[in-house]
């Protein structure tokens, strides 16, 4: 791995250190000025008044928000399990030796990777009931999310399977395993282990997606925040608290993904040693491609 700090500048000398000090002071001043403007804006519109924040120190409000957070987590968990399972099937389909399976899975992935989730949600809300498929609010949120996220998961799985050294599959064939056995016993376990960090960071994207419950009136965090805000008229305060809750959950998940990544690095320590140019290692941009395709949203 290149250390970007080492890449772009040497250990600074006396002049460099002086410049860094100056830039730091200027930076602190700029941040302080921005904070001052923000506080001024809050104060000028009376949003800093204690009684506009006090409700967020009371249990009923927190209980309401925590119930909403739990609904968010539940929707995300169900979506994660279903879309990971479907995504794995789709990835296997795309790598299958049967042309029809490849085409079918490929079409599914390509379509649902490029259609907005909100459109799928509108479709679920307005089109499916006409065909007698009227889900509960929970499933009206989860079904479109699964449809969209399974395509994203499929791409993660496919990239992971393809990134595995070909020799592994060839060795499996050499000892007489059937293709399905090679996949199940040799390729998938290794690919999945390497993919755990990307899968966990995909969970962050998924959790963010559940905020679309806002649109289907499923009482997850964002929608509950809106209900609370219109009930208490504390718009700024409520949405800021909601944002902090999202941030807390997702930042922990991201942190967890990084810890996994670091552990993975040790598990595959020998492969990584070539400072990113290891010929046997994965092309550094190859993992980027999947990151770009999946962790966004």
């Amino acid at each position: 791995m290149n250390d970007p700090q080492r890449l772009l500048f040497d250990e600074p000398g006396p002049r460099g250190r002086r410049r860094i000090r100056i830039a730091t002071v200027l930076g602190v001043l700029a941040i302080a000025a921005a904070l001052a403007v923000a506080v001024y804006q809050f104060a000028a519109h009376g949003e800093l008044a204690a009684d506009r924040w006090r409700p967020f120190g009371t249990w009923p409000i927190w209980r309401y928000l925590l119930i909403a957070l739990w609904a968010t987590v539940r929707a995300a968990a169900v979506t994660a399990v279903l879309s990971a399972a479907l995504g794995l099937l789709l990835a296997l389909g795309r790598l299958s030796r049967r042309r029809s399976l490849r085409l079918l899975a490929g079409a599914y992935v390509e379509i649902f990777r490029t259609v907005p989730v909100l459109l799928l949600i509108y479709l679920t809300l307005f089109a499916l009931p006409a065909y007698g498929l009227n889900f509960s609010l929970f499933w009206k949120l989860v079904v479109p999310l699964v449809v969209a996220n399974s395509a994203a998961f499929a791409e993660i799985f496919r990239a992971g399977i393809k990134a595995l050294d070909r020799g592994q599959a060839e060795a499996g064939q050499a000892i007489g395993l059937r293709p399905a056995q090679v996949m199940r016993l040799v390729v998938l376990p290794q690919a999945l282990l390497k993919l755990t960090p990307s899968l966990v960071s995909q969970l962050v994207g998924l959790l963010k997606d559940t905020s679309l419950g806002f649109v289907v009136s499923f009482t997850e965090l964002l929608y509950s925040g809106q209900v609370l805000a219109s009930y208490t008229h504390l718009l700024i305060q409520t949405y800021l608290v909601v944002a902090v809750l999202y941030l807390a959950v997702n930042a922990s998940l991201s942190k967890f993904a990084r810890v996994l990544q670091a552990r993975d690095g040790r598990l595959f320590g020998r492969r990584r040693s070539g400072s990113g140019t290891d010929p046997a290692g994965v092309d550094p941009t190859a993992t980027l491609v999947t990151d770009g395709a999946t962790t966004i949203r």
Partner: protein
Amino acid sequence: MNPFSGYLTELGHGLVTTVELTVVTTVAALLLGVVVATLRICPVPLLRTVGLVYVEVLQNLPLLALLVLFVFALPQLGITFPLFTSAAIVIAAYEGAYFAEAIRAGINTVGIGQAEAARAIGLTFSQSLRYVILPQAFRAVIQPMGNISIALLMNTSLAAAVGVVELTQTANNVNLVEAQPLLIFTGAGLAYMLLALVIGLVTGRLERRLAIVR
């Protein structure tokens, strides 16, 4: 009767708004991404922290929550923009974090010898970044950046949830009158796929022309 026929202008306007929103925010987010990526690798520790905090906060908040905060809550502080501008600012800020990470990953792929050579011929930090590192970094991550642009295109649909009348919202409006959800939403979906296809083709072509084979 084809329910589209009476609404072609409306749907056309929605499509144009989506394209405008996508183009404006892609350009803004790309510029922002370069700035944030530079912050994250610059010699000043404080600025590196600022870049890190920016990326962490923006990547871990749902875009829709940011849109709702910006559009519905900020007016309470006397901060208002036209709806389209609000949506563009929020989406650009959000996607800027992703572009920044892609560019930083690109910088990581640039050989350390390149940076050392740049320093050896006496280029300053900003010069080596501008003339040596960034041009190579960009070439390495054209495809990931294309994927981010496609995600951005899909994310512009969230602007519908706060009232911007773009393609998704127009489709929804037309459907409320015509009650032909399957046809209208499929049509809108096809339009999104086409736009994504265009982005994919452009980045694919750029990649073939510019990618550096190492």
